């Protein structure tokens, strides 16, 4: 259960987003592959949640699963996604379309691919506003200029096509588009990965500023743990389609409960600390076509012991929640 200790500064509120048991399967010729298995997450209003994991761990699939943006052969095979109380998975298309963008918007990895290359920015902002009932051209134009101003882009660029903007500007234009209705939740799939380090940081700073100013919640997926850690309130670590650790960012870094998280942290050298030899994590993730029945990280874990043949629950380590039997209160608890 994802009822992690609440981050400081946030009142005890109704969660904006409640994901329970989300499972996404891909139908392949060799059989169904579970890219996301029983994913749980609560997101409070205004919270910044980072999701990290290596390539192929299922984080992007999970994100699109939440946003109901999966394409065949992927499909949600189990679970619910409660947004403000309504289950997005079982909603009708009409209800879903009304919620889309107004309440939940999306920012993707590459704006060059995510923006329609043959239409001007203005028309791409316009069509979503019209789709949600806005009829007045002047209101549309005004709002478009407002969001561009929020991200620091001059309004003359409304007439530009995506390929005419620089990479950083494109990403910001995409973020501006996501803010059109000032939604409650913005889902971001590695929006900074396509940029250089300097642009990355400035974009992250801008996102954080906007978030604090406008108050939306963010679920931010990335493989770059160190980058997101400066900005997120909570961190989710995924491995082989499952959540292995979740907790306040500071605690995940200072007191990692799961050996995988520890391994990830050890892979980043510290700028200030003493020189230590870099340790990677030997081995590779399991084949999801036929995942192991016990703990999925066991094969690569330096702390493996005999209980690891049983799939672990999420245990409270006192700082975070970690899916590792090392934190079971007793042997009996682990076997339950």
């Amino acid at each position, binding site marked *: 259960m994802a009822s992690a200790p609440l981050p400081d500064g946030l009142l005890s509120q109704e969660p904006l987003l409640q994901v329970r048991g989300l499972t996404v399967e891909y139908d392949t010729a060799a059989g169904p592959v579970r890219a996301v298995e029983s994913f749980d997450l609560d997101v409070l209003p205004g919270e910044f949640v980072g999701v990290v994991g290596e390539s192929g761990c299922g984080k992007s699939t999970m994100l699109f699963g939440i946003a109901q943006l999966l*394409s065949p052969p992927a499909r949600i095979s189990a679970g619910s996604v409660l947004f403000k109380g309504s289950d997005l998975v079982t909603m009708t298309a009409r209800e879903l379309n009304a919620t889309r*963008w*107004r309440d939940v918007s999306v920012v993707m990895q590459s704006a060059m691919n995510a923006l*329609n*290359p043959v239409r*001007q920015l203005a028309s791409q902002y316009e*069509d*979503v506003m019209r789709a*949600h009932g806005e009829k007045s051209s002047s209101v549309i134009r005004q709002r478009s200029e407002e969001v561009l101003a929020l991200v620091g882009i001059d309004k003359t660029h409304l007439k530009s096509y995506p390929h005419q903007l620089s990479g950083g500007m494109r990403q910001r234009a995409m973020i501006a588009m996501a803010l059109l209705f000032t939604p409650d939740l913005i889902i971001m799939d590695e929006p900074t990965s396509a940029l250089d380090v300097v642009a990355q940081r400035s974009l992250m700073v801008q996102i954080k500023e906007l978030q604090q100013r406008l108050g939306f919640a963010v679920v931010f997926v990335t493989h770059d743990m160190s980058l997101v850690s400066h900005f997120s309130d909570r961190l989710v670590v995924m491995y082989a389609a499952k959540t292995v650790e979740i907790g306040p960012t500071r605690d995940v870094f200072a007191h990692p409960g799961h050996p995988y998280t520890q391994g990830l942290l050890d892979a980043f050298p510290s700028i200030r600390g003493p020189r230590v030899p870099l340790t990677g994590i030997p081995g590779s993730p399991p084949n999801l076509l036929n995942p192991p029945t016990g703990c999925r990280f066991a094969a690569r874990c330096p702390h493996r012991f005999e209980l690891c043949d049983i799939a672990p629950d999420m245990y409270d380590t006192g700082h975070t929640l970690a899916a590792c039997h090392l934190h079971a209160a007793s042997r009996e608890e682990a076997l339950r």
Partner: protein
Amino acid sequence: MRFLLHRLGFFALTLWAAVTVNFFIPRLMPGDPASAMMARFHGRLNPAAVHAMAIAFGVDANQSLWSQYVGYLKNTVTGNFGTSLTYFPLSVSSQIAQALPWTIGLIGLATVLAFVGGTLIGTISGWRRGGAVDSIVPPVFVVTSALPYFWVGMMLILVFSVWTNGALPNDGAYSLDATPALSGPFVLDVLRHALLPALTVLITSIGAWILTMRNNMVTVLAEDYVRMGRAKGLSNRRIMYQYAARNALLPNLAGFAMSLGFVVAGAILVEYVFNYPGLGYMLLNAVNNLDYPLMQALFLMITVAVLVAVLICDILTAWLDPRARSAS
């Protein structure tokens, strides 16, 4: 703008190549065309006819090859193609002017219809993958697009003309006893005569458009901006047309431009089968009558028609794709 200038340059280059080929073919063939002609039309040629051929070939024994070439170029540019040998003493240009509207009207219209219709069907087929439409469409149209144009025409004649005892005509552009005029009955007559040939072109050419558009749609639908369109809560229709089809269409247009050579081949055969008095039919008759001036001019005219169509496609592409406008 630069893009269009580039294409116009290509247009000019191709035209020049065609004209030059036209100039050199008679000279590369064994024997001297002029004297061969004289021998064939022995006694029937008067000085005017000789002069006609001289213009058509640019042949003038008194001049060097280069000045013959220049003279030929000049004649071509001014539209002076000489006199037709079959329709003597009518000029070649007048004959072409007569046949041109029939070809553009029938073949041109049918081809455009096939492209537009095929693109539409391909869009829907690609959008609804796995649906009923999509499981039938590809195999059926792969086969129809491999059918020879002329054979389809003959089959249509068999079914709709011969077996129905002439319900639909299969010969010419209008009935022999009809008088050309802009009257209702005449127009109807023309349409009746155009039905089978147009159907032939439609049936054989639509397949390729459906299939390429469908494949393009499938590729485009996997793109992020389509997913973004769904994320924005846009209607399916809007995504299908404005996001997917708009992008999938672009390579299709390029393909259309490149396929025009095949369209012309098919057109010639269809006109032949149906005795339809267009440029293709005239070309084949000219070949049978060894009317060289007419033949060469027709080849040139067909080339110009194709180039104009290609240019139109280029303009359309530039209009639809902002990236093409900025690219060099």
